[in-house]
């Protein structure tokens, strides 16, 4: 399944909750303020890297670019555009938005 997280991990617990529930093989897409989690030097970088061992982590590039963070993309995170977002939703049988 696809998990969608739109919250900065330093402000809200959405990403932590998502990672605690996500099953191996699931995909996690970071959008809106959620994209900050996918940046180098972020306090949660290690946690995200550990999660990427059993989860596919994606970030919505337009949201990353809008926030001036495109050059800081963390390793192991795949940037996608809105077309990629649509494709991810279509590929997975369900999705959960961690609002």
């Amino acid at each position, binding site marked *: 399944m696809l998990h969608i997280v739109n919250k900065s991990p330093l402000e809200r617990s959405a990403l932590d909750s998502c990672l605690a529930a996500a099953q191996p093989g699931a995909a996690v897409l970071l*959008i809106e303020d959620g994209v900050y989690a996918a940046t180098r030097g972020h306090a949660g970088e290690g946690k995200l890297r550990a999660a990427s061992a059993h989860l596919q982590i994606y970030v919505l590039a337009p949201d990353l670019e809008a926030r001036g963070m495109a050059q800081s993309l963390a390793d192991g995170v795949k940037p996608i555009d*809105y077309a990629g977002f649509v494709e991810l939703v279509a590929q997975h049988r369900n999705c959960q938005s961690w*609002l």
Partner: protein
Amino acid sequence: MNFGILVNEGPYTHQASDSAYQFCRAALAAGHQIQRVFFYHDGVNNASRLTEPPQDDRNIVNRWSKFAAEHKVDLVVCVAAALRRGIKDENLAAGFRISGLGQLIESSIQADRMVTFGD
């Protein structure tokens, strides 16, 4: 594939409505269909034709109206949530209709995928 979309936040304060719109556009461009966009919670404010953003900003409400007209997309505003927030037929923007929560449930049953945008 048929997508159902749920928008839980109003325009401008949150990015939810923008993200939902960009997703819908990309879905149609890829040859998919949007079965319905349902507006709930403060999301009903996306349907107010009284909004007047500054000239240099996007007009979120008009953008949805235009999208509905061009692509025959069903934009549904929850009646209970709308009445709470002063959205009625007299200030409803073009392309939107007011209906019950049953339309959201129906959408999640009929659509192949349901995607929620909110806060």
